[in-house]
């Protein structure tokens, strides 16, 4: 019984880690740039297709998987940079509505682009051979791949925290959140800073998509549920906060995992229940600043 629950929690943590990697990108974009990036789930979906293409091009080996883990964030990062530089920058400072419409338009463009390149069929990326089995935890099999996901999530959380708190880039970004004009007056190229942050956010969605590809199917529509959960993470964690996003993603992952054991028919509502509870107790999110 307790072993079951432990294994369940562990799989919830692994699911939460993928969510964290994706949502950390969204929380940067939303918290710093104030852009409600509706296309974030589509970035994730596109990355899964890129991972599929790369893995197949290399031949479905361990190397193919490693290459996909590298290429997907890279390609999505560049995609994000171009999107911000060419389009989003043009409407900076205007109503949020314009940004919402433009990012929403991007979701449609990405979906159609995927259809043009890969067609409408669903696809699958295999686990890398090295990680396709399972390890025994308290006598129960647990997928080895999930351990990798958890490790990658922790590494990303560590690196992002270091980046935001210990580097000049991170401090400048934090300052730009509070007062972009002042930061600009001090000689920082704020638009370029924004482009970089957007690119980094998109790259994180890319990494999330490549990490998730072997765990599920690669198909049109996989971005739909992750975008809702990612926004929930941003709100629960407090917008812009990386540790907040980590805590929120893990809460959502574990609540879903355990919730299904207790009340499977309510599964669809767990994210929203968690969201409501947190908002009632801390309207600014777990680790968010009071605004």
């Amino acid at each position, binding site marked *: 019984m307790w072993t079951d629950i432990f294994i*369940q929690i562990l799989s919830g943590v692994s699911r939460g880690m993928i969510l964290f990697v994706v949502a950390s990108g969204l929380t940067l974009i939303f918290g710093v740039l104030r852009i409600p990036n509706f296309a974030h789930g589509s970035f994730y979906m596109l990355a899964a297709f890129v991972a599929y293409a790369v893995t197949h091009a290399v031949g479905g080996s361990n190397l193919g998987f490693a290459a996909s883990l590298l290429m997907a964030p890279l390609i999505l990062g560049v995609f994000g940079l171009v999107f911000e530089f060419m389009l989003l920058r043009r409407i900076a400072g205007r109503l949020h509505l314009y940004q919402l419409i433009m990012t929403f338009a991007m979701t449609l463009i990405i979906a159609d682009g995927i259809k043009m390149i890969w067609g409408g*069929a669903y696809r699958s990326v*295999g686990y890398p051979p090295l990680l396709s089995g399972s390890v025994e935890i308290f006598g129960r099999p647990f997928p080895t791949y999930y351990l990798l996901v958890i490790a990658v999530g922790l590494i990303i959380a560590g690196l992002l925290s270091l980046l935001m708190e210990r580097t000049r880039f991170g401090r400048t970004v934090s300052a730009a959140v509070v007062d972009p004009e002042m930061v600009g007056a001090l000689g920082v190229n704020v638009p370029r800073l924004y482009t970089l942050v957007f690119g980094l956010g998109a790259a994180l969605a890319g990494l999330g998509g490549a990490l998730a590809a072997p765990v599920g199917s690669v198909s049109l529509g996989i971005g739909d549920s992750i975008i809702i959960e990612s926004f929930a993470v941003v709100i629960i964690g407090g917008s812009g906060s990386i540790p907040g996003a980590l805590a929120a993603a893990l809460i959502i992952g574990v609540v879903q995992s355990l919730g299904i054991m207790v009340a499977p028919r309510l599964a669809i509502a767990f994210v929203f229940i968690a969201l409501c509870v947190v908002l009632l107790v801390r309207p600014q999110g777990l680790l968010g600043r009071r605004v």
Partner: protein
Amino acid sequence: MTSKRFTRRGAALIAAGVFAGAIAIGAAGAEEKPIKIGLTTDLTGIAASYAQAQVDSVQMAIDEINEAGGVKGRKFELLVRDSKLKPELGSSLTRDLIVREKIDYLIGPDASSVGVAVTGVAKQYKKVVVMTIPNTPRLVGELFHPYFFTIVPSGTMLARAMAEGIGPDNDKIAFIGGDYEASHQAIKYFGDWLAKVNPKAEIIDEQWPKLGEPDFTPYITQLMSAEPEIVFSYLWGADLITFIKQAKPYGFFEKTKFATLLFLDDLVALGDDMPDGILGQMYAPPFGTKSEKMDAFIKRFEDKYGHYPSDWAVMGYDGMKILAQGIANAKSWDSDDVAAAIQSHEYDGLQGVVTFRDVDHQGNVPSFLGTTGTVEGLPFKALVDIKRIDAETVMPTPEEILQQRSGG
């Protein structure tokens, strides 16, 4: 005066000539005017790849008929509309095809929900419709009308066939299926038939993940701790792929038998990642029927579209050929005559002879149960030990149909 009379006579002659000419041209025009076939299907959404196979195979059948000179001197023309998995859109596009594009006959949509919408419009405008993918039992039940035909094994038939296949050998059965109508119907029909084939059997656990669930892990552990002899799955498409990939490392398939609805698209997508020994239920897999006709079809399809045809392609192709044969055999172009002709003739198709019952116009089409494994000559895992379940063993009786139709 003379000249005036002449003119009048001349004018009358010319008018008569023009009139006669117009009739002649009109008649010739009617002779050459193509027979328009309307196809409303979901080219957008989770079932888009099924719809694409349908469009391709219907087009292939039409091309073959046209190359052979058409039907009664007329060629076919296909008009395709995208209903985007939305029933309301399916209705209005089909209505538009009939009213504005003046299509003559309809061929089957994709999703069952759109199928329900399309059959309603077909009934309203008295248009013959041959369904090649939708299979909700409601189509032959309360929504039935004389212009409707289907060559898809209905949900009832599939669920009963599954009970026939796995019921006798297993007493403890668990269920997992997406939380939507077809899935709830499947477990109901399955359970009813199970009571007949093995009264000792019981359904010990039911799991209802949402459609498009990205994480099946909790359901997998729940199913495993229920310790069933076999799990009956009504997951399909991308959901089935996600489930299989997530269940595999937990040792799920070593611990319990697994029987599932399976489409050719799933086999192709998973490739070598498809575990061996899964019991798969398929609609109309090309490899399930060995015949010269089927082999030739597979080759033609591969040559034309560059990939192996799916279940949907088999049904789309047969559906179009059945419609064309009905038109060819009918006394007139009229819907009533074409429906009567489809009804009264048998069709020798890819999977054998198809006839339609009077009571519900359900074609007596088979379904297939087999075990996943490697098949020589196919680049993906397919089914071995295939058992063909003929329609006659699992079709609802006419009395059952009439009872359902009267709301019983």
